[in-house]
């Protein structure tokens, strides 16, 4: 076998092996369902991004194989043996053979400057087209705008059905962003404290929530379903525990869900466990958590957990801050609005499932009726939240521990929460 042929066989078998491994890995990556995967987009924007990047992955892959192949080929073809220690008669080399002392080739250099430049210029044209299309946030055909507010370490969603974000929202929810499937939904992303980033990988890329700024963003889901997300800008202690879910419903289901969200809660019947739970809740929890129709702004006045004034950026800043306006009791003091807690699938910044093993088996709107409540995590959370999700030692952020509550108290609070559907 000639040396050239040997190299060819050696190289091609190597490429076959590498290619096979690559294919297997790609296979695992693509087919295995990952809830946060960017590789299987199910929304218009996510798909546009994938359509842009997938060919580039292929081009990059080709360049990868060419360069690595070249390295291996040069290695194989031009390596020479020699003294291991370099103290042979000819130093490291066993001979005095010298290759051509080529210093360069200007035409070659210019060629491999220009070719990649052209390649990249082509790529950049496609990039710019996609970029401006994605940024066209007025594409939404719904009036509704959802103000998404990040804070340590959960998300609040203020629904403005008429699209006017300067007025009070129609209703407020937390952690689970419910949208109608098939339509672009406009988001208005803000932050109350530090920088967060809103990201539902299957629907669209991420957009930072920067305090003092308001960022437009659009998401769309092709089909009804639940799509997970994770805060992706480091936001302090519990950054890793700041997750969220986007729930897409059919338009009619969405209307049903929306109407339910706009109903205030009613007081539990006298004498029930839930009524006792409400007592505890109104003393222990209502300073931060709002329940429309039950808690009031007065509950929150001067509460210890409110952030101190000097960094209180909840209020409107007249010199340039375009943050949310506190207009009425819909908006919580420092914690999620719990009016319809039981309609959500997750709690505590979406790190716990509210219903055991519910997954996608129970339709979203029937969770409250058919789901089995995840009592263990919920009770543990109520009595000692920082144990489950690290919170700042000074108690200004994150849910404080309520270890003083008796097991009965906690049962009653859970009973009360269970009425919030």
């Amino acid at each position, binding site marked *: 076998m000639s040396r050239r042929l040997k190299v060819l066989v050696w190289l091609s078998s190597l490429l076959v092996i590498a290619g096979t491994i690559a294919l297997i890995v790609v296979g695992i990556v693509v087919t295995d369902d990952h809830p946060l995967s960017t590789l299987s987009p199910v929304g218009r924007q996510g798909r546009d991004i994938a359509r842009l990047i997938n060919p580039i992955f292929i081009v990059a892959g080709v360049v990868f194989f060419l360069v690595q192949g070249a390295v291996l080929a040069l290695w194989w073809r031009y390596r020479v043996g020699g003294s291991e220690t370099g103290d042979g008669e000819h130093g490291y*080399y066993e001979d005095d053979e010298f290759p051509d002392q080529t210093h360069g080739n200007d035409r070659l250099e210019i060629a491999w400057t220009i070719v990649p430049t052209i390649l990249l210029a082509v790529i950049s044209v496609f990039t710019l087209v996609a970029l401006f299309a994605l940024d066209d946030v007025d594409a939404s055909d719904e009036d509704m705008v959802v103000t998404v507010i990040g804070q340590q370490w959960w998300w609040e969603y203020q629904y403005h059905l008429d699209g006017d974000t300067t007025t009070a929202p129609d209703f407020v929810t937390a952690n689970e962003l419910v949208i109608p499937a098939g339509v672009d939904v406009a988001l208005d992303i803000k932050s109350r404290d530090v920088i967060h980033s809103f990201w539902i990988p299957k629907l*669209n890329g991420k957009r930072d929530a920067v305090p003092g700024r308001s960022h437009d963003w659009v998401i769309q889901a092709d089909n009804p379903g639940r799509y997970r997300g994770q805060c992706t800008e480091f936001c302090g*202690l519990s950054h890793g525990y700041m997750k969220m879910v986007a729930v897409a419903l059919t338009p009619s289901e969405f209307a049903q869900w929306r109407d339910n969200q706009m109903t205030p809660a009613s007081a539990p019947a006298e004498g029930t466990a839930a009524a006792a739970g409400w007592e505890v809740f109104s003393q222990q929890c209502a300073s931060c958590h709002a329940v429309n129709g039950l808690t009031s702004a007065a509950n929150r006045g001067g509460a210890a957990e409110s952030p101190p004034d000097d960094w209180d950026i909840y209020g409107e800043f007249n010199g340039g801050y375009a943050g949310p306006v506190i207009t009425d009791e819909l908006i919580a003091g420092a914690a999620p609005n719990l009016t319809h807690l039981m309609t959500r699938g997750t709690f505590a910044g979406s790190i716990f499932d509210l219903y055991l093993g519910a997954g996608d088996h129970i339709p979203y709107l029937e969770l409250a009726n058919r789901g089995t409540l995840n009592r263990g995590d919920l009770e543990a959370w109520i009595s000692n939240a920082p144990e489950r999700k690290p919170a700042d030692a000074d108690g200004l952020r994150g849910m404080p521990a309520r270890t003083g509550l008796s097991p009965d108290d906690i049962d009653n609070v859970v009973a009360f929460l269970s009425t919030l559907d």
Partner: protein
Amino acid sequence: MTVTDRTITAPEETLALPAGPAVAHRPLGVFTRPQGSEGWRSWLFTVDHKRIGIMYGAAAMFFFLVGGAEALFIRLQLATPNGSVIGAGTYNGVFTMHGVTMVFLVIMPMAAAFANYLLPLQVGARDVAFPRLNAFSFWCFLAGGLLLVSSIFIGGWFQNAPDGGWFNYAPNSGLPFSPSKGIDFYAVGLQITGIASLVSSINLIVTVLNMRTKGMSFFRMPVLTWMLLITQFLLLFAIPVITVALFLLMFDRLWDANFFNVAAGADPLLWQHLFWIFGHPEVYILILPAFGIVSEIIPTFSRKPLFGYHFMVASGIAIGFMGWGVWAHHMFTSGIGPLAVAAFSVSTMFIAVPTGVKILNWLATMYRGRLRFTTPMLYAVGVVSMFTIGGLSGVTHAIAPSDTQQTDTYYIVAHFHYVIFGGALLGLFGGFYFWWPKAFGYKLSEAWGKASFWVMLVGFNFTFGPMHILGLQGMSRRISTYRADEGFALWNMVATIGSFVIAVGVAMFLWNVYASTRKWQRAGRPDVGPDPWDARGLEWMTASPVPEHNFDSEIEVERLDEFWHRKYGVDENHRVVKTATAEEVAHDGSNTKVHLPSPSYWPIVLGGGILLVGYGLIYNLWLAAAGLVLLVGAIYGWILEPADDPDAAGHHDDHHDDGDGHGDPSGNGGPDGNGESASAAAPADTEEAATVG
């Protein structure tokens, strides 16, 4: 080779740094100037660029172990879902310190080690332009590094470590959100290492511009010298920007200013812009020295000159320039607006072109070469191969829409580890093996070296390869844990195993250093000769280890790769023939009449003063005041140190060594119109200097 003869003129007359013994031993106030070159004290007070280089390397290696241990903790915590090896708070401190340590205390000083050791040698100089300032740079860097690392232990394990990420975005870095002392350590520590880098960059720029030996025009300088010079320019202009940002942060935290106070109307994106205006050139500060090292190693072990020298230099300069116009690609999701995103997206893409030119030139150098895979060559080829991967993934997130999916995920972590570990660190390790015999006179074991390379390479790919997949599967960066049902468990476990394989590889390197040193000590010093690898640069043209005075006499350079051309000629058939052995060409270090700048107490005292000021700013301003007194005292001691006799022009021992012009303004002022003859040669040189500026 007649050149050799011509350059060896009367040694005493060609000294770069004249000094009279009477001056060197002259008492100064209560202190006597330190003397001698033996014992540990001589290291503390040394101003020798080679010793300073070695100390940079040793300190960087120490910090590398610290940063590596932090990396292993990160990987242990993330090995399984819901990991609980270290809590979220400690985790945040660990990943922040890992980033800060590896960037500022490992890669940068390792590159500084090579810059200090090799730059003067490669341009044929006796020392750097300002030897005492050079010593100060090192001590100042060490002060900043120790201050940063001490934060891990002060006040409890990781209680006061910086925990805002190496990028430290406002307003999370503000007092309300980060009440521990951690961010103060970050701000103060990086200021101090910044001073060190800035001073060192000025020093090395002046060295390259001004201290080149006869005939060493800019386009006869080795590519490593070029890359280091570009790096120094990047440092020179980038460090002030982070200095501004850190000052603003410090004012906010210590004195309640409003720069990042959103409630007062501040825009936190200001920090991001300032940080990344510094931060992106910083990336090239990390990688360019490794590019230079690779460009030295590959030709040596290909038995060929570097392919396309001028294009290699030009692409390095292009990278240096373009590095200033791409910073906002770190901010594609920050909400800077579509036009800014578009502009930075396009500019970022084209920075791939000069980088690609480098890769192709290295391959072309190897093409038809006679490749000898010694350990340094393995590392260099490893860089070519691994950096390509990092470069390609870099292009994929230059594409802004795709970056909105990839940024802040493990895909980015994979990308920059392929660039910084696969590019910079492998290159620097290759440099260790390559120049080790030059610095110490003996070689590291090739067998252990090759073994540790392969272990490191395999571990590296198993650690960071899977992170591409994790990132595309949606795993965010900087999360201390993940849910079991998110599907990240498999590749995280692979990555964790890989990270321990890397640790084994590093341990093998350390064992190699230990064992090779022991072997050399037991056997007595085996003389590797001046030129163990049959290399090309001027640094090989003197004895190994390099004598304190570098070269016995001034070398006159007539072309690129001067040393190689003195060893080899071409016969009538254009075949390369050996015309002289390295030993014949190289200096043997026997010229003991060379006067060198005397050691000095003041650099280390000044470094100590800065350390005190640093702790003082964090804990107690009185301490800072004490540090300031020490600092000012050290500066005055420094200024008064040279024999201060205007009539003795030309007899000062360190006239090249003065930071702010207080010292002897060099013999330029001498009565006999000296020094100016050199300026007749200046036109050509300064013309070329324009390409630098």
